[in-house]
């Protein structure tokens, strides 16, 4: 990992307060991922992503950052004010910038990253193998499309 990238990762970690983590595990308790993924494990939990970032290298290349829904429940329960959501979001953004965002889904209209692929897989599990176009649009574009179809 180049120096520049290391610096960026460092910055993301500082801004999300990762170094304050005391490993209490409260973040995992409230995390909805436990109810979404049969394969839920330490690896993809907030604590797991945090540990991976701390130990490095290249946390943004890791697949484990593409399971989170960014709901922020972890941040809200954290007694130390660590934001695992910000860490994950920051790493994802970095991954997009360096072209390593294969696990992300981009809105078919505006091109913005709006859903991690694992979350989409979860949606498909729950909804069935449906071919609905709207699922591949981010919510603002989806609303715009709905308006254009009906007015």
């Amino acid at each position, binding site marked *: 990992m180049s120096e520049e990238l290391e610096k960026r990762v460092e910055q993301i970690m500082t801004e999300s307060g990762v170094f304050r983590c005391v490993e209490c595990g409260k973040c995992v308790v409230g995390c909805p991922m436990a109810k979404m993924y049969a394969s839920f494990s330490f690896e993809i939990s907030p604590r797991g992503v945090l540990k991976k970032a701390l130990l490095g290298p290249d946390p943004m290349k890791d697949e484990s950052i593409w399971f989170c829904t960014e709901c922020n429940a972890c941040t809200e329960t954290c007694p130390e004010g660590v934001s695992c959501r910000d860490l994950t979001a920051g790493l994802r953004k970095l991954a997009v910038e360096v072209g390593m965002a294969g696990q992300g889904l981009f809105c078919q209209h*505006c091109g*913005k990253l709006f859903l991690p692929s694992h979350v989409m897989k979860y949606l498909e599990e729950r909804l069935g193998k449906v071919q609905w176009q709207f699922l591949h649009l*981010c*919510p*603002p*574009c989806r*609303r715009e499309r709905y308006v254009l179809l009906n007015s």
Partner: protein
Amino acid sequence: MNWLEFYEGRGLVVDLASGKVRQEALKPEDAEAKVGGAALNVALFQRYAESDPIILSTGPLTASFAPASCLAVMTAKSPVNGNLYHVPLTWQAGAELKFSGLDYIVLLAQANKPVMLRVRRGQAELTSAETLWGKDIPETVRTVRSANPGDSRSILAIGPAGEGKTPYAQVNQNFWGTLDKAGFGAAWGRKKLKALVMTGMGGRVKVDPDHPALSRQLAEEIKKGMPAKMTGSTAIFKKLGEKIPGPGLLSSPAKHFACFHCPFPCQTFIERKKSKAFLRFLLTDPGGAMAFRNRGKRAFDSLAECFRLGLEPMAAALCFESAKGEEAGKPGAFSNLLQQGEDLLERGLPNIQKLAPWPGPENDITAIAGKSSFSTGIPPIAPEGGAAGQSAREWARRVAFSMILGVCPLLMLIASTLNEEKLIAFMGREDKEIAANMGRLRGATRDLLGEMADPPA
């Protein structure tokens, strides 16, 4: 009800030269003496006069349940004649400014490079607008919005006209024109301020549980006072006794847009097929439309082109009239107007060296409006029910107090049933509250109008 709760209590002071953005508290004595809107702007202008200020503010009733509570007011010295003017900004500007948690924004000095100011609740930042500089209005708005889809409800921006500092430049809102007839586009251009993006979406506006019902009641009264089928831009023209300036205005189903919380839509969305493309715009500027009516079928094309470039339509139309007519028909005629005013004079290109007056017949109201510090884009609609010979004063009074309270002056002129008492009721209905607020409003209105302030007999 603590009347100060109707204010956000905060203003933003932006020093464009240094790039510093500072928040300051709204002084209660300012609110007490000036209430808000245009009157507050005068006080702020004087306070910051040395730094070439442009002030934008809302009133205490902006974004409240008062009818047409959409207003923000922009005040500055006009680059054309150096006089102070107040421009009403309707549509979403006032509401989004208030939702951003601000009572006013003061823009000082000049930036070295093109900048954009973005405000939202709790945040304000000046960012570089170098990639936006040179873009026309629709391109600018699209670019800003594509960075954040679903955001940026109100964008005030200048187009190539403002960038070129021509005195016929306007500050536009979103894709269309505003009632800025004072050439503030050039003032922004001088400051290298490309856009002000208000990403409100927040808001903690003080309201009472019975306000929606009160607002509904007033809306019913207003509707009763209007003849049926009088809606959209047609209503403004009919009230003025003018003919409709262009084709397609009455085509049904015409879509009529209303500004924030206004029960009476007075802007028609024009949509016409022209060969392969569509001409689409919102008729936000009745004066602008009328100014081009001598262009017949091409009136709306000209208006839309002015909106696109950030040109002030009333002035642009006058420029073409002053030319020999052929100039107006040449391709790229509008682009010529984008150059500096002095250049136009030297090159013998069409120009006027003044603010464009209202493009209609002269009467008492246009006389008073021309002398006032209100934008000449506010239609000279005579308010009904006044005593004979008083309509001009009543016009000025209504425009003044609406632009202080933060409600749209056009509705005040169209709906004769609305008055200060009914609006003030949204700030408290107990007798002593009403008395106190009326006192403040009357004082501020008087100051704003100078000797034109005596209420009608």
